[in-house]
């Protein structure tokens, strides 16, 4: 149960090794957080992060297959077993698959879409269903500005983010009055191991900076945040640009 000063008792992170996810969780950790559940494919990587957590928070690690949409309901059931409510769930797992040649292997789209889109959508519904029973809860979905207006370069990634991003907004609308809400986080380019070797884009950010923005929004009624916040205005304009202008933008 969350408390009156905005501290969640139980936090669940999906994508326990995600750098942004870990940063978000670290920003949410404060006295009163009783349990943190890290859900990941990589148990060792999650354990390393779990061991680094100080204080009274109990850390639990649960394995899941991020590509298996059919297992999401069971995973949510597992992390909320024994009537344990999920106060805040962070959905942070995802793949970027930068540089994949989809023209050479069109079937490769499946690997990315299965994780970023299908399984994430199933997880979103599984969490929403559980939280509706609880009568409260907050889901934090790590989306991306890449989904706001999908661009050349890695369109499969952008399209997957566009899909879950718009799905989450509509589900959040459906959840009105249930006590459950979704926070869609749209970071720009984040310097992390996921983007190692990639050219830094303008308005780049760090996992910690993203986390600070999320921490401020988690207890508000906000539905969408950008990181850095200036991207709200930048992409507000980008999404309105005629295709001819959009294609000419020197965005690399």
């Amino acid at each position: 149960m969350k408390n009156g000063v905005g501290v969640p008792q139980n936090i669940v992170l999906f994508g326990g090794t995600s750098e942004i996810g870990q940063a978000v969780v670290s920003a949410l950790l404060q006295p009163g957080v009783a349990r943190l559940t890290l859900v990941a494919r990589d148990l060792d990587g999650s354990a390393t992060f779990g061991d680094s957590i100080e204080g009274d928070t109990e850390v639990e690690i649960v394995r899941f297959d991020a590509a298996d949409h059919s297992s999401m309901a069971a995973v949510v059931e597992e992390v909320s077993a024994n009537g344990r409510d999920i106060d805040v769930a962070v959905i942070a797992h995802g793949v970027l698959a930068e540089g994949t040649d989809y023209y050479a292997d069109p079937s490769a789209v499946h690997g990315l879409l299965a994780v970023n889109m299908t399984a994430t959508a199933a997880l979103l519904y599984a969490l929403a269903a559980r939280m509706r029973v609880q009568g409260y809860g907050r889901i934090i979905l790590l989306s991306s500005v890449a989904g706001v207006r999908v661009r050349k370069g890695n369109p499969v990634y952008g399209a997957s983010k566009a899909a879950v991003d718009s799905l989450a907004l509509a589900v959040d609308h459906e959840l009105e009055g249930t006590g459950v809400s979704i926070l869609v986080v749209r970071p720009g380019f984040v310097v992390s191991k996921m983007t190692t070797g990639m050219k830094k884009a303008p308005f780049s950010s760090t996992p910690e900076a993203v986390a600070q923005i999320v921490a401020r929004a988690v207890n508000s009624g906000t539905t969408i945040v950008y990181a850095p916040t200036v991207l709200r205005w930048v992409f507000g304009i980008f999404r309105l640009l005629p295709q001819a202008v959009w294609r000419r933008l020197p965005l690399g």
Partner: protein
Amino acid sequence: MTKQRLSGWGRTAWTVADTVSPADETEVRGTVVSAGSRGVIARGLGRSYGAAAQNAGGQVLLMPGTAVGRPYSLDQTSGNVTAPAGMSLDDILKDSVPRGWFVPVTPGTRFVTVGGAVASDIHGKNHHFDGSFGQHVLSMRVMLSSGDVVNLSPRENAAWFWATVGGMGLTGVILDVDFRMLPVESSRVRVETERLADFDAVVAAMSTDGDDGTYRYSVSWVDLVATGKATGRGVLTRGDHATASEAGGKEVLAYDPKVRVAAPPWVPNQLLNKFSIKAFNELWFRKAPARRHVGIESIPTFFHPLDGVRSWNTLYGVQGFIQYQFIVPLGEVEILRRVIEAFAGQGVASFLAVLKRMGPSNEAPMSFPTEGWTLTLDMAAGIKGLPELLARVDGMVLDAGGRHYLAKDSHVAPQAVRLGYPRFAEWLDVRDEMDPGRKWNSDLARRLSLLERG
């Protein structure tokens, strides 16, 4: 059944539950017996500051009113009242004061139900003199989770009775209550007001009351935003019901409580900030006479000053606020000082901070009052760093052998109950006996694991 978003008076930690306004006892039974795994809790007028009367994803019985329980009656000769649990002290006072009877205990608001008064075992400015509400209860009828109704009193089912007093609604639904009223000659209060320059003076002045039996009511407002030596300066008010001759005039029992103004429907989030609160505290201090002053005040002015402003709890804006109330043994004055310093040191401004010396505890294992000092302060819930600060202060309070008031609490950890209430396990045993199916539940119970041993 309606889906409804609920919070406590502090307007934090909102959750959604199915609410039922039972038309009679049968409907209460129907709801209780058919309750699902998220359980059910009774809710009165929602004056608990935290999450005591809400039940996320479960059911909430909206009790206010007189539909459930035996009807209200006041015996003019004995002063014994029968009141349905959903009846407010406000409604009782409107009938009883003109007839020469006052409620035995009233908190700072008269908009609490009788059921809530028992479940929280409320206290007032007369705790050092009269004890808490539960001590004036003769008997009550309680519906168990089985649907059976039992009669509880200090003689009949005593263990169940005392587990229900201060039991936060987790033992059963209180249907109606018989309790003893206090005879009064007038509807006025004779009040001595005294301004005290610093915290030492406040403590010294309050250390003597009760001993001589002069003052039935005693409480001190303290200024926690004043800086330097003035931190903790206060205004001590003490008094008793005025006699007919003191009240003077003809209609000495006339009682006409009015809600004078309402808080505006929309309030800027920063209305109550460090500066406005400081200004208010300065004004409040200056408003009190510099020398001891004896005056005659009305019941609402003395007991329920904030009730004059409807929904004053919205003044903190959407962030809501918390009220921090704890008690420490009489010898731990130093802890009070350290707590005050801890809050002041982080610039936490409190609109109304109140210090009271409490009398001995009663037999209820989960009753909050116990001999000692209780300090109450309110603060905006959104203050940066508040969770860390509160955790630190909680530790200081618990280390000093103190505890927190569950009717006010909105943040303590489960451990705070186990440490602060040494009879918690004993209460839990009785609770389980009364509710083996674990049907009662609330957000407070979930956060503090009040149904679990560990």
